[in-house]
């Protein structure tokens, strides 16, 4: 007898929205559409400015799984929990997945915090609720991330409250093992699981690792800039290398962070004297491959980090060597996820220049790192990661069904995941 299929609601940003994690959502949904156990996908996305040409980026490949896009929340709005709850009540999914980071719902403290309370509210409706949390509040340098304040300890306190609320859901998934251990130990919970980031690309053939044999090197950085990703030192390092006679083009691919509007325009003016710099602006999904393929190497000009990096995974998928800072848990990401790179001291232009030059001047080492990163990125494709989620979803639905049958009312049995259980569902 075939197993019943599930309707999954995904609360997320989604292209053409330029909000953080939109690309992750796109690839997650692309793989989810191929799964036999999915009946329907409902995307509860952010509302975009009204233009007649908005087309949501959906997989063009034939798929039996229909997708409904319901724009129902707005970045920065205080009413997002009510809007999302109303939409969920209306569509009645079997399970709700939130694709979140701490600033998903706003660049100001109150709307950001209110939005992060939504998963707990959905759980109170009785729907199995899972949160994919890309960052941990406790691990973020708030100042660097654009949430700096003289009352940082107060923000930290509310951060702890928000984390507790997120942990009221059925399952919180994280992309790094040390984050799972941190939440488990600090909050004494069991409903936290590791689900690796996964590789976006499904390519089976290894790409070339050195596309710039003509002698002109493209140094590329990718992301949302202005908070903890800053390009001042990268521009200065590239200018320094150019004066040493190296033919380098710098590509700054991406936009301002929502918390640092106007940052890249300011950089354009301040560093107008640096030659061969291209600011691409927003890179649509269909252009991402070209941007990575044309790069000789990818630089991560971070002054702090918020955890695992989607851009690092992408660089690996395209077989690129990377230049990385020695900061926070970023080095741990490299070690835990099997990536290699050329490292620099964060804050030092000279060190950054040396790290870039070390790879530009040594094509063999560059290619070796590229191959290594390619292997790391392809160790677990997104399709497999989606399978991990589906088995958790099925487990939660089975638990819910069992509770209905046995009318479980014991409040101490609040969560479905227990330490050292031997699954009996």
């Amino acid at each position, binding site marked *: 007898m075939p197993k019943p299929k599930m309707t999954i609601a995904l609360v997320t940003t989604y292209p053409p929205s330029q909000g953080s994690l939109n690309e992750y959502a796109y690839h997650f949904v692309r793989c989810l559409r191929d799964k036999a156990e999915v009946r329907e996908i409902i995307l509860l996305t952010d509302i975009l400015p009204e233009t007649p040409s908005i087309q949501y980026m959906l997989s063009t490949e034939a798929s039996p799984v229909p997708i409904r896009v319901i724009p129902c929340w707005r970045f920065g709005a205080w009413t997002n929990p009510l809007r999302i709850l109303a939409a969920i009540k209306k569509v009645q999914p079997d399970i709700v997945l939130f694709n979140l980071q701490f600033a998903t719902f706003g660049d100001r403290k109150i709307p950001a915090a209110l939005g992060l309370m939504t998963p707990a509210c959905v759980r109170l409706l009785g729907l199995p609720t899972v949160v994919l949390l890309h960052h941990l509040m406790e691990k973020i340098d708030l100042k660097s991330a654009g949430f700096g304040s003289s009352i940082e300890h107060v923000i930290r306190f509310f951060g702890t409250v928000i984390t507790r609320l997120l942990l009221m859901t059925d399952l919180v998934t994280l992309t790094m*093992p040390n984050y799972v251990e941190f939440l488990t130990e600090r909050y004494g919970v069991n409903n*936290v699981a590791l689900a690796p980031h996964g590789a976006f690309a499904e390519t089976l053939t290894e790409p070339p690792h050195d596309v710039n044999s003509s002698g002109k090197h493209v140094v590329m950085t990718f992301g949302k800039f202005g908070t903890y990703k800053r390009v001042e030192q990268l521009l200065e390092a590239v200018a320094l290398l150019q004066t040493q006679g190296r033919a380098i083009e710098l590509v700054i691919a991406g936009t301002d962070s929502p918390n640092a509007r106007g940052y890249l325009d300011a950089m354009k003016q301040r560093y107008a004297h640096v030659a061969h710099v291209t600011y691409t602006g927003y890179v649509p999904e269909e252009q991402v491959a070209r941007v990575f393929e044309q790069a000789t190497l990818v630089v991560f000009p971070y002054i702090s980090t918020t955890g695992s990096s989607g851009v690092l995974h992408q660089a690996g998928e395209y077989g690129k060597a990377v230049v990385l800072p020695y900061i926070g848990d970023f080095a741990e990401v490299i070690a835990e996820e099997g990536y290699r790179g050329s490292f620099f001291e964060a804050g030092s232009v000279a060190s950054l220049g040396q790290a870039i030059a070390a790879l530009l001047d040594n094509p063999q080492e560059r290619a070796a790192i590229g191959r290594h990163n390619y292997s790391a990125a392809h160790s677990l494709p997104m399709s497999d990661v989606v399978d991990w989620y589906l088995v958790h979803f099925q487990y939660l639905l089975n638990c819910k069904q069992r509770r209905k049958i046995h009318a479980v009312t014991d409040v101490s049995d609040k969560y479905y995941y227990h330490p050292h259980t*031997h699954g009996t569902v």
Partner: protein
Amino acid sequence: MQLQMSQINTITILTLTGRFDAYSAPSVETQLKHVSEQAPSYAIVDLSGVNFVDSTALATLVQGMKRCRQANGDVYICGVQQPVRIIFELTRFDSVFRMFSTQAAAVEACFLKV
């Protein structure tokens, strides 16, 4: 990694020894796929001799379990040792899979289902 196959009545038992990783996962995947195509689709994976699993290995077990459950069967795990148990706990697959301390216990549970 070494893979030994055995059969108790209609239940397939895969006994693995050594590192269970991306290099050794394809052979396990093939066997679990084969189990999912027969009836009853029950397999026991004995990990008592395994000292390391990576994400590809876990993905192989998840896929095998999904296929077998789709065919009204299952994949049971037994004999998991510390380092490997930690990975199952980190991913919460210790709740999702049916896990047993010994092969005999897993076989007994399988017989109740078949």
